[in-house]
């Protein structure tokens, strides 16, 4: 049981992620030699892979599908062991309707703290290892995700991960989960909150280098595996004249939703591309306006300096004392270069929509040929 008691010790040694009271001083047991290599108190072993428990998979899918709001968030709980981040539980975070930041942040923190406390009482894992977010058509880039993950990577052990679940892919028969973290170069730029062009160039940032993907595994514990096995087993019907559907019913009949020929999602996808391109254009317009303003101000400042220099030269020629060189920055307020983060994120969204459209289209082509082959 060394592993679990160590886990408690690790949880206690964490800079408490939320307001949860730290448990009483943990009792240390001698670490057996076989485990000594895989337990790292200082979080030195880098994360290789994220492992998602079956329970978490269903919880995220249910929350994402039932929620009425566009953004679905929840916290992931688990442990890391020898480079594997095991996510064993998750809970949904309430959606805030109001924008009263102070109040909602506080109540959200309270909610998290009491949820974690409650889960600990029933021996569930209670250390936060990241969060999940649901998305449609693969476009998960947004400010919100970046902000939360930036905070997590500061505070959490190993920096935490974000799991992105794609609702529209799941509806098409391919349950999609991906794990991400922010790249160090992006985090560096984010900490300085500097997304000017030079900073982007220095950090070599494009939308594809904001996040790095962490390999993800799904795991089912043996108990759940055996239970699922009994669910998929079909039992012959007792009725002699059952129809084909009811002759050998099983709780989980095989599904072939991937073969659906419908193209309902395509229009939505195209619409969303147009929408994203529109907002990108607006954002670009803003940026262009701001940079023109900067250029104008700068030109005026340069003009002023040049004029002053000329004047001074003239005065020196007439043996007069030169006028003092005034601080230009004080006279002319040159606005700071605008942040390009938003436009970069929007480009990332456009790319994701395009990717999802391309993959749908290629699937559709295969489906059409296979349907034709069967006629």
């Amino acid at each position: 049981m060394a592993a679990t008691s160590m886990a408690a010790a690790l949880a206690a040694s964490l800079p408490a992620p939320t307001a949860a009271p730290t448990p009483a001083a943990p009792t240390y047991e001698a670490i057996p030699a076989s485990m000594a290599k895989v337990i790292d108190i200082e979080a030195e072993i880098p994360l290789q892979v994220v492992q998602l428990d079956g329970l978490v998979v269903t919880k995220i899918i249910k929350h994402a599908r039932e929620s009425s709001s566009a953004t679905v968030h929840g916290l992931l709980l688990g442990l890391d062991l020898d480079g594997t981040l095991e996510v064993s539980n998750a809970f949904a975070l309430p959606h805030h309707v109001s924008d009263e930041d102070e109040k909602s942040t506080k109540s959200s923190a309270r909610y998290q703290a009491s949820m974690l406390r409650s889960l600990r009482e029933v021996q569930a894992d209670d250390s936060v290892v990241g969060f999940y977010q649901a998305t449609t058509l693969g476009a998960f880039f947004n400010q919100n995700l970046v902000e939360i993950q930036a905070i997590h990577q500061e505070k959490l052990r190993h920096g935490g991960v974000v799991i992105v679940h794609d609702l529209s892919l799941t509806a098409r028969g391919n349950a999609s989960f991906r794990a991400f973290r922010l790249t160090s170069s992006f985090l560096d730029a984010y900490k300085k909150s500097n997304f000017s062009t030079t900073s982007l160039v220095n950090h070599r940032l494009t939308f594809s280098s904001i996040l790095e993907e962490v390999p993800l595994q799904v795991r089912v514990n043996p108990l759940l595996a055996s239970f699922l096995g009994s669910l998929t087993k079909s039992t012959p019907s007792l009725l002699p004249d059952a129809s084909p559907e009811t002759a050998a019913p099983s709780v989980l009949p095989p599904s072939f939703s991937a073969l659906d020929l419908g193209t309902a999602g395509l229009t939505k996808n195209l619409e969303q591309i147009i929408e994203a391109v529109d907002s990108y254009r607006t954002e670009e317009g803003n940026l262009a306006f701001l940079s023109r303003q900067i250029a104008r101000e700068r030109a005026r400042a340069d003009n002023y300096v040049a004029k002053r220099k000329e004047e001074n030269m003239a005065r020196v020629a007439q043996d007069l004392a030169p006028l003092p060189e005034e601080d230009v920055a004080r006279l002319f307020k040159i606005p700071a270069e605008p942040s390009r983060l938003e436009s970069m994120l929007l480009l990332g969204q456009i790319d994701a929509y395009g990717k999802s459209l391309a993959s749908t289209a290629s699937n559709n082509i295969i489906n059409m040929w296979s349907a034709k082959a069967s006629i």
Partner: protein
Amino acid sequence: MALGGSSAIHIQSSTTVPALASVPRTPSSITVHPVALFSILDHYLRRTDDQPRVIGTLLGTRSPDGTQVHVRSSFAVLHSENDEQVAVDMEYHRTMYELHSRVTAKEAIVGWYSTGSNLNTYSALIQNFYSQETAPHQAIHVALTTGAEEGEEPGVQAFVSSPVGVFPKPENCIFVPVPVRLQYQESERSGLDLLTQTALAPNSTTAQPVTSIANLDATLSTVSQMLDRVLAYVRQVLAGEVEGDKALGRYLMDTLGVGPISEKGGEDKAFNTSLQDTLMISYLANLVRSQAEVSTRLALVAA
């Protein structure tokens, strides 16, 4: 689809008696969402050594007339039982319910679960407690056998209770089994498929994410295997090696005979139009992606 044994009683609600609006009817069918079951299994895995069974609260919705109960999720509740007494941590239960209702406001307490098929006096007492929580509706009880103990099959049973005896006492009641089904949305189906595939995989782990193409490939090869199996069987029957099953033959005719068989020309035309549309979309998607890529690179050289 029905879960568990066939011993459940299908209660026929008597339509002749005018249903009083104030008195909710007894639940006659119960559906369970997979997430509730999986939570129970997880709770069972995490029990302490001295706990023979675990219990928890079921959350869900009811149909307007109260005859159908949909269990949507569940959470664990602390309890202790020994030879003399049983105790349920009510405060914990209230806190958890309050926390859950902040996210899913629609879900109300519908009953409780326990692992194992053992129904005893304590079950009746807990049932009595939950009946107070769900009043005026009846509480339901879901018993999940994990299959981890010897001689029991994994399965799910659901019960409603009715008082028994001349003077109703909380520790006396009859648990009446009701039919229970697994229910999930079609769009959640692929999540379950993912888990069943994972359960069959070595080490019970699968790497993610699976691309749509790989997924499609797997589905198509399943279909092709099924066709091969049917074809092999039909050949065997034709060769006289096995005696044909008439029922099976009819099933095959029903299943394979439904395809649209129309004149060739129209279909080809429709196919070609659709193919061109799809190719166009594919081209468009790639164009959009390359534009985005170029645009983000240009932002870097603008300095």
